[in-house]
């Protein structure tokens, strides 16, 4: 196989991984926010995110006959998903986690699992009443077209991209842009604002934060609101990318995203993003290892195909954590005793 075919292939695989990685990254942010303040693996986040995806689906479905601009629809879908998921997340915290603030850490973990199970069936029932199970996004036509297709003004750019193997659809670009915007916004919020500092203080010591005049419960609610809104965004992005969701689709991406959060250093915002991207790319590269195996003539490599994608990523995680026990960007806290 010559370089001319191989290069676009590799680029393609990597870009595909990156696009996917952005979705993981935004989901991961939702986990990492909540983990940051409560040290809780919020197992229900996957359903918060699916709720966002379903809300997004409903918005696009209801607006399908409407001739309005596709981007406006997307905006509405995003806003609706952010609101619903955000509020849902706050409610979950109120009802299922807050009463357990002082219980051993694993107790809210179990209620999180319980909430996750409840939400799955609730979502299924809601859609089931309308005879639906798998929900397929009805997206504006234009989203499916190739980015910088021949007829548009940026055809030249599109051609260049495609020659090196980057073949994106408009919706992929939308996805990346939305993801970057949310990321930037969140980073600003957490690191630059008073609110962010307060959240971080609460994350470390709720009681002392109270002594600083910070209402810890409110900050925790805010965190769940933000985390939920991110879940909503990621839900819509997931719908955009994959096209079909159902009440149970959250579990898988949820696990991967949480892994991404851990890989990046749990609690770290840039870490979650880096983790998502790295995981996306690694998964894809492992998925094509057998091709390299063919090229290199190695039978062992050839045996590694897409069925190893997920666990390959886990093994990479193990390796990274062995050398960097607090994740890629996690602060390695030398303990002061």
């Amino acid at each position, binding site marked *: 196989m010559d370089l001319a075919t191989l290069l676009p292939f590799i680029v393609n695989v990597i870009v595909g991984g990156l696009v996917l990685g952005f979705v993981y990254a935004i989901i991961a942010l939702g986990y990492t926010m909540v983990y940051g303040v409560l040290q809780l693996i919020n197992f229900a986040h996957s359903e918060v995110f699916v709720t966002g995806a379903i809300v997004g689906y409903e918005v696009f479905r209801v607006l399908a006959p409407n001739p309005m601009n596709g981007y406006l629809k997307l905006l509405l879908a995003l806003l609706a998903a952010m609101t619903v998921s955000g509020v849902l997340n706050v409610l979950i915290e109120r009802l299922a986690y807050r009463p357990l603030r002082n219980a051993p850490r694993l107790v809210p973990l179990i209620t999180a699992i319980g909430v996750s199970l409840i939400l799955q069936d609730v979502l299924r029932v809601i859609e089931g009443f309308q005879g639906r199970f798998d929900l397929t996004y009805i997206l504006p036509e234009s989203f499916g077209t190739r980015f910088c297709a021949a007829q548009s003004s940026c055809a030249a750019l599109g051609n260049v991209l495609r020659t090196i193997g980057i073949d994106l659809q408009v919706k992929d670009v939308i996805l990346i842009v939305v993801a970057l915007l949310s990321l930037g916004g969140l980073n600003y919020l957490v690191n630059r604002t*008073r609110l962010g*500092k*307060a959240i*971080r*203080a609460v*994350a*470390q*010591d709720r*009681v*002392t*934060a*109270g*002594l*600083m*005049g*910070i*209402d*810890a419960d409110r900050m925790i609610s805010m965190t769940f609101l933000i985390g939920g809104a991110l879940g909503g965004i990621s839900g819509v992005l997931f719908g955009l990318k994959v096209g079909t969701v159902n009440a149970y689709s959250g579990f898988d991406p949820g696990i991967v995203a949480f892994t991404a959060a851990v890989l990046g250093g749990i609690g770290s915002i840039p870490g979650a993003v880096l983790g998502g991207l790295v995981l996306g790319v690694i998964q894809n590269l492992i998925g094509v290892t057998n091709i390299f195996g063919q090229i290199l003539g190695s039978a062992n490599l050839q045996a590694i195909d897409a069925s190893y994608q997920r666990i390959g990523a886990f093994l990479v995680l193990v390796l990274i954590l062995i050398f960097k026990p607090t994740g890629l960007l996690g*602060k390695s*806290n*030398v303990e*002061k005793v």
Partner: protein
Amino acid sequence: MPEQVMVASSGQAVRTAETPMLELSDVHTYYGHIHALKGLNMTVNPGEIVALIGGNGAGKTTTLRTISGMMKPKVGSVIYEGQNITGLPAHTIMQRGISHVPEGRRIFAQLSVRENLEVGAYTVTDRRVIEERVQEAFALFPRLKEREGQLGGTMSGGEQQMLAIARALMVNPRLLLLDEPSMGLSPLFVEAIFDIIERLNKERGTTILLVEQNASMALAIANRAYVLQTGEIRLSGPAEQIAQDESVRKAYLGDE
């Protein structure tokens, strides 16, 4: 909120000495079934330094926690500036102008020194004011300036103690609760700390409730003092008088 704090800090003259700033009456506080405060009564007048001394486990820390809202008393009331603040959550009490330097320092380990200070000024919204106060803190504790970017948790014990005090001062409180501020500080610094306490009281008019093991130094700067024993007030009165008390000297000052 922050505005109030500002005004108040410069306006201590408004209040008269007759109305106590803080009044605890018949306060009972529990840890589970452990009865830590058993009907505590005490007052702090505006502009005073009041020392609270007592042996290990006497309930000094619990008293401060009950005032600042970290704990709720089961019985009794805490009146601050004429208002009943019993059982209010800590953050609202703090917004009324009470700062608490807690036992064990409780520095935000993962925040830098500067961020710790900024969080201390959470209720202050004006960025310029915050910056001013950060500089004031640095002036008081030069070590903190040297370590502006270091994570709070990696500071040495004494450095953390400085940070905890500086952090509580960020809001310019009207009432400052200090729980063993000299613990873990070098002798040189212990003196400095007591200096700072006195200056705060004199120059800014900050009222101070001081818990100290170093009773002789505490009594030296305090106006009045209470002696606490197993959750009850054993003795109270002007500081000099308490310092002379035979039993106190024996029990807490280590005099043979």
